């Protein structure tokens, strides 16, 4: 076998590294470009009226207040159902469950929940919450649908946060006479809180940006008033962006970009919040 000279090995490595660097940059730079572009195009549309007024003229003028409020309600509704359930499930998996086949089935179920296409959640929500439980197309039905979709994200992140709490903390608490639940509530949960919070926010961020699950469970095409009860349908930012970019002819582009920007700010705001919580907690952590 002919041995390649060290020089050519070096050359190959240098070429290879350059290629990989190039591909990585080609992958990442468009991401940055997309954000900068939307900010640049959307910023001129932003005004006090745009954020606080009702849509007018078949959504071609006025503001997007009902969509902003609607997305806020949906996110809140999702949090009400998915956060307690998700954290409780994570506590079970991390603190109580034994490693047996049943626990493994729970884990497989969680992985599968995370993988189910969002539009299938929409079908499920339509079948169960809208039709069977007769909640109608409503904030409640949409929130419940989004909650189930968000659950696996919250469970996995919270479980990871709970497991990261050192075992010694639990041992000490138990040895001082604390019961299992006291240990969890006063020691483990507070220590894991920042991690749990990060996971919760990232889960809700996904719910806030989703369109397919709310299409037939709670989203209204056009509703020039604010929803009055959880049983009302509502406009929502992602669905509104879909509507004005595909269903409304002669839609001013500026309003489309403005809506996209508001949606991104909403979603990214949550993302940044999560990142800040995570890094601050890391700095303060005693273990």
């Amino acid at each position: 076998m002919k041995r390649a000279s060290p020089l050519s090995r070096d050359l190959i490595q240098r070429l290879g590294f350059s290629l990989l660097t190039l591909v990585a940059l080609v992958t990442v730079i468009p991401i940055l470009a997309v954000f900068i572009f939307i900010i640049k195009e959307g910023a001129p549309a932003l005004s006090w009226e745009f954020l606080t007024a009702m849509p007018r003229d078949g959504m071609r003028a006025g503001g997007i207040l009902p969509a902003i409020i609607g997305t806020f309600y949906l996110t809140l509704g999702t949090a009400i159902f998915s956060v307690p359930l998700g954290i409780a499930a994570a506590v079970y998996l991390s603190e109580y469950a034994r490693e047996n086949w049943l626990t493994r089935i729970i884990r497989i179920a969680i992985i599968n929940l995370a993988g189910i296409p969002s539009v299938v959640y929409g079908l499920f929500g339509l079948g169960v919450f809208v039709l069977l439980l007769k909640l109608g197309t409503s904030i409640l039905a949409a929130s419940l649908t989004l909650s189930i979709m968000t659950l696996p994200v919250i469970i996995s992140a919270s479980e990871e946060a709970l497991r990261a709490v050192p075992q010694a903390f639990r041992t000490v608490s138990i040895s001082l006479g604390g019961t299992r639940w006291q240990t969890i509530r006063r020691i483990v949960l507070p220590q894991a809180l920042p991690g749990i919070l990060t996971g919760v926010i990232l889960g809700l961020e996904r719910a806030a940006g989703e369109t397919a699950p709310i299409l037939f469970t709670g989203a209204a095409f056009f509703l020039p008033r604010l929803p009055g009860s959880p049983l009302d349908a509502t406009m929502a930012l992602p669905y509104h962006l879909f509507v004005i970019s595909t269903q409304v002819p002669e839609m001013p582009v500026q309003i489309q970009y403005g809506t996209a920007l508001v949606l991104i700010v909403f979603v990214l705001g949550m993302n940044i919040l999560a990142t800040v919580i995570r890094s601050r907690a890391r700095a303060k952590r005693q273990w």
Partner: protein
Amino acid sequence: MEPKRLNWQEFFIPRLVKASGYSAILFVALIFFFLLREGLPALGEVELDVLFSQRWYPIEAHYGILPLITGSLLVTVGAMLVALPFGIATAVFMSEIAPRWLLEILKPLVELLGGLPSVVLGFLGILLLSPFLRTSLDLPTGLTALAGALLLGGIAVPTIVSIAEDALDAVPYSYREGAWAMGATRWQTIWRVTLPAARSGVLTAVMLGIGRTIGETMAVMMVTGNAPVLALKLESIFHPVRTMTATIAAEMGEVASGSVHYHVLFFIGLVLFLISLAVNIAASSVVFRSKKRAERVLS
């Protein structure tokens, strides 16, 4: 101390917590059950040879789901051809080559893309990507399978990058040191040691990327032109197609509940559910098996 309240808590809370844990199984079962209940009647109402015919035109009772299945497959394969090389190369770059400071920039950026609502990407697809494709490739319309594949590739990249990067990071450092000590260059080490050692994780990334892609709805509905035609030839990538997800999303709103059309749409949902089930179980069994193998090797 309040011993009575304590007993109450110690009794109920573990049970409540346990029930929450099992709720995940309950939800998957419920979803499956409902898809079966609403989707299976389609098999009785529509002749099988109609259901698996080439024509989807529900107004005239043509419920052929083949064009929708081929549409989904075409877009997914296209998306993977985009996302795999870029995603895995980015993961290798981030895990093996990038200096720390660059990593601190790249990682949040990829996460940011993961958090971007797909409807925003669809919106940009309509406004920027499809006009660009139309003019540069001289097509009658830019709303094609290609546009869908490109967008979906972008959507799958964060999934692939983060899972593949975790897999590469999990390869023990001593493997690399061993290779270097034998005189291998860093490049050779990446290709012959690190990547092969991380292969099951990378495979998981690929599978979950496929799962994510085939289930994507909004972006794909907005840019693929929504024409349910059988897509079997290579040129189909330059024509409009219609995926399974987009069909459900576009038509479910206008369908009377309990009608044949309604049942067929649920049947398509059932097919999607089973695909995602298969992909995820396969992916997690790969992880499980490789974990076992690693334990054997290390013990």
